[in-house]
């Protein structure tokens, strides 16, 4: 049975021009990147834009990426920062309305069982809190990795996590531990 190739090996392959390695890297990290973007911006189309642009930016910067560092937190920071930038720019930018065709070609998939509550609770957080909560519990980075990726003091990350979880807990009415 073949061993799963490391991100480092895939990046080396990508830098050597092997497209299949870029694809493996992309498919390995896309679901979490997209999910994280969506949970921050709460808009599937915008999340797709954010995650896609983050991957394109990451591919462009692969040559300067320090391969001793893990790839996932680096990518996650790009996603989270772009998502926050989008949220901040949104108020200054005209948004378009999405409409349905008279006969839509396919029904939109339903939200998950807990999604509506979860999204409502996340919406109550500040963008900064939402970013660290999503990075911690969706992307599963350690507080140290988040602090390093976002260039924040560890204490700031921990306090945002604590306040964010407290708010989520009060909205969801559930114990978080």
């Amino acid at each position: 049975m073949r061993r799963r190739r490391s991100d480092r090996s895939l990046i080396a392959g990508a830098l050597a021009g092997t497209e299949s390695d870029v694809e493996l890297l992309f498919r390995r990290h896309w679901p979490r990147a997209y999910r994280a973007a969506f949970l921050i911006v709460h808009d599937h189309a915008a999340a797709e834009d954010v995650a896609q642009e983050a991957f394109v930016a990451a591919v462009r910067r692969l040559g300067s990426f320090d391969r001793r560092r893990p790839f996932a937190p680096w990518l996650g920071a790009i996603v989270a920062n772009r998502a926050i930038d989008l949220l901040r720019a949104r108020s200054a930018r005209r948004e378009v309305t999405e409409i349905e065709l008279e006969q839509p070609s396919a029904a939109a998939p339903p939200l998950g069982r807990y999604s509506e509550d979860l999204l409502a609770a996340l919406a109550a957080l500040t963008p900064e809190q939402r970013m660290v909560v999503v990075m911690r519990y969706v992307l599963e980075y350690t507080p140290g990795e988040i602090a390093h990726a976002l260039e924040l003091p560890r204490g700031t990350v921990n306090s945002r996590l604590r306040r964010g979880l407290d708010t989520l807990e009060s909205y969801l009415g559930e114990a978080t531990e």
Partner: protein
Amino acid sequence: MSAKQQLHRYRAPDERAAEERAWSAVRGAYREITPRQRTRVSRVPAGILVTSIALVISAVLLSDLRSADRRSRVSAISTSAARALSGSQALVTDETQSRLLIVSLPSGRIAHSVPVPADPEDIAASGNGGVVVVVSSAAGKVTIINRDTLRVVKTFGGFEQPHIDAISPDGAYAYVTDDSRGTLTVIRLSDLKVTDTVAVGVGAHHLAFSPTMRTVWVALGENAQRITTLSTIQRGARGAGAVPDPGHPHVVGHFTPGFPAHDLGFSPDGRTVWVTSAAGSDVTAFDSRTHRVRFRVPVGAPPQHLAFEGRFAYLTSGYGSMIEKVSARTGHVVARARAPYGSFELAAADGYVVSASLLRGTLAIYTPNLKLVRVVSLAPATREVAISRP
């Protein structure tokens, strides 16, 4: 279930489809910025090794002479990397509010808007980067916009009723038809000078370049009984070696399609010219040399419009609320989808197909196989659309 568990288990809808669209964009960016795969040589014979070392030494000695060339290559790589940073965008003319809208794909968000002279109708973009050409009919003006900065770099006046523009396949020239004056105006994009204005016939409207730029067809009217054919080969020059000069086209003949024609386009291999109808429901493909009918494609209520991408043609029927994907070689329909009413104009590039509805003010965004991604409402009336990246 705790907040942590909910976050961990959350799955966004449509993840798989979004992944495929994103991979298409990421792959495109990777191909732009990455050199070709290196070839490994396992064993090198001694003679070849000596020759290789000599070649390397020669290359080093010549390297100073090539520094300028290297700089230009580095610059080219940086430019393409910069382009790759930004995703594909649809450029849409907002006719009643006199704006050019820059719309992110696939989200449909308006990223920018650029004011342009009154009644912007047609639009053409010189590939990725370069310029955007917007034709404003009521104002009688043609606006050239820098694609990267989105600043207007020049506005040409003096037209009576310009309607349609097209950029030559090499990106060097913009052609603009003026139906009142019956002319075709040629603008050189490198220095933004008009190089020629050619009388082609009253009603000059849709036009199309052949892939080799040697031939241009111009439909004389929205219900054109005649099509003017032009050549860019200097008079007297003959044979395949004759170099086209798109700066100075000249009329070489006229062609009667046998039905009121509207839009037209050369297939990517240049063998057929597809002519849409202003009266019937079919699009007709003519042999580009003999002008004989090769095949007809049923689409829907007239007028239809068309765009080619790769091996396929995309055809719309705005009044029929229909868009089709058709084999450019055989004319067989391979996919079909509904479109918002009034979706006359379309564009296909960069892994997207988009159509703008003049009557609904929407932009419909599809995958290349015509799976609808979304429809967004942009303005009261969206007329023409192009796809490009900065």
